[in-house]
């Protein structure tokens, strides 16, 4: 089928980089980019919970660079609401129908909500978009008492930023340790100790039942009947992939849209996906995964574009995921996928500079590198060789 028009659904990092890669792959037809957020170039998300929230950067810094030859048709401020794959068309929230020859699914992810918490209550915030970051920055401008629900990456970064500004910060986390989903309980405890040492009132193993107050939030109510005073509440309990608009096409939408190794959507030859929304079989770890990190979006973009333009020359995407976070004086870098914490391979937690190993079935699958940037990339490469833990002492990269 000739490719004359490609629709890119989602105008953040994955959508933009895929669109650019379409040009690199030689596509000269029309690229229509549809995005709910108004800004173009889109902003980069990692700084939102760091430099932008801290007020270190002017608002125009932190926009993504756009290739000069992109020449997109932009439809901003609108979201795709439906896909009819058998007719090669998508529908937008204003009823507009766009036909396509190829489609890129890059609709990303949105913050998970708690049914019991109305985020329109003054003082309640989420942090995903640029306007949300600006709103939160303004809200923490005085000296409010901040309560963060959820100790994942975003919750921990917001906590660190607020403590750097001297604010009174409480984190409420359901799991026994912060960052437990990525780092596991043992290194999660390391992260917890770091936050406590920096003055955060970190309360783990607690269930939130809702928020209350007169005209604005004044407290977070817990399931045990107690409450925590709050001027500002940040709800940071993770994100979910934006796949609702894909329903009705027979796709597997369990935890993202299922793609094959080339990032082509299973069940549709002219549709690809990239970024937070994409679940694909990662050969490196012999399982399907969905990755919510910056580098994954950029790397998948190149492969997804190639698959759409050159389906006859399939390229598989296998990857070692990488995520970073800056909290207080710790540069935290994790490469690989989650496994069981195994041991400290280098350095020590006491000196706040170490590499910790994670293993599955005796094989190294992940490395947590703290204040060890020169080491991180060595471990990223090392991981691709599936190193055996029992031989690791003599084989360290």
């Amino acid at each position, binding site marked *: 089928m000739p490719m004359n028009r490609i629709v890119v659904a989602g105008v953040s990092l994955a959508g933009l*980089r895929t669109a650019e890669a379409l040009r690199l792959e030689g596509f000269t037809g029309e690229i229509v980019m549809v995005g709910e957020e108004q800004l173009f170039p889109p902003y*980069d998300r*990692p700084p939102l919970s760091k430099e932008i929230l801290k007020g270190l950067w002017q608002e125009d810094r932190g926009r993504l*660079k756009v290739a000069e030859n992109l020449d997109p048709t932009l439809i901003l401020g609108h979201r795709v609401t439906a896909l009819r794959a058998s007719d090669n068309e998508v529908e937008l929230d204003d009823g507009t129908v766009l036909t396509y020859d190829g489609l890129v699914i890059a609709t990303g992810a949105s913050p998970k909500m708690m049914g019991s918490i109305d985020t329109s209550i003054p003082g309640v915030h989420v942090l995903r978009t640029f306007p949300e970051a600006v709103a939160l920055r303004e809200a923490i401008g005085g000296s409010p008492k901040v309560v963060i629900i959820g100790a994942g990456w975003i919750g921990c970064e917001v906590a660190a930023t607020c403590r750097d500004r001297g604010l009174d910060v409480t984190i409420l986390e359901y799991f026994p340790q912060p960052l437990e989903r990525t780092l596991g309980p043992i290194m999660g405890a390391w992260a917890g100790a770091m936050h406590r040492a920096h003055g955060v009132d970190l309360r783990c193993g607690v269930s939130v039942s809702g928020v209350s107050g007169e005209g604005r939030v004044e407290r977070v109510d817990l399931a045990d009947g107690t409450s925590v005073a709050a001027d500002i509440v940040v709800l940071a309990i993770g994100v979910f992939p934006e796949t609702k608009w894909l329903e009705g096409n027979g796709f597997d939408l369990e935890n993202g849209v299922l793609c094959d190794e080339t990032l082509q959507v299973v069940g549709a030859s002219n549709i690809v996906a990239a970024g937070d929304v994409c679940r694909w079989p990662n050969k490196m770890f012999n399982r399907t995964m969905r990755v919510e990190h*910056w*580098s994954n979006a*950029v*790397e998948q973009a*190149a492969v997804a574009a190639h698959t759409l333009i050159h389906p006859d020359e399939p390229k598989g995407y296998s990857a070692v995921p*990488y995520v*970073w976070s*800056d909290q207080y004086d710790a*540069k935290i*870098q994790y490469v690989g996928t989650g496994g069981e914490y195994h041991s400290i391979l280098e350095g020590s937690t006491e000196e706040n500079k170490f590499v910790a190993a994670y293993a599955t079935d005796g094989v190294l699958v992940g490395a947590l590198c703290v204040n060890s*940037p*020169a080491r*991180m*990339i060595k471990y*990223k*490469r090392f991981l691709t060789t599936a190193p055996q833990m029992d031989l690791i002492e003599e084989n360290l990269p």
Partner: protein
Amino acid sequence: MKITLDLDVCAGHGQCEDAAPEVFTVNDQGLVVQLIENPGEEYRAKVEDAARRCPADVIKIED
């Protein structure tokens, strides 16, 4: 190929070393170090990949 590096914004992500290990490495301070002063054309694709994958937008290819 002339490359300029903005070390003020380098954050030690190491993606450049991953993409083009012949041209870039990350030192103990977490900063990129260029290993070949003016790399030849054979490295262009890798250096372009390194620039694209840098989260801090450190790498500029000048020609």
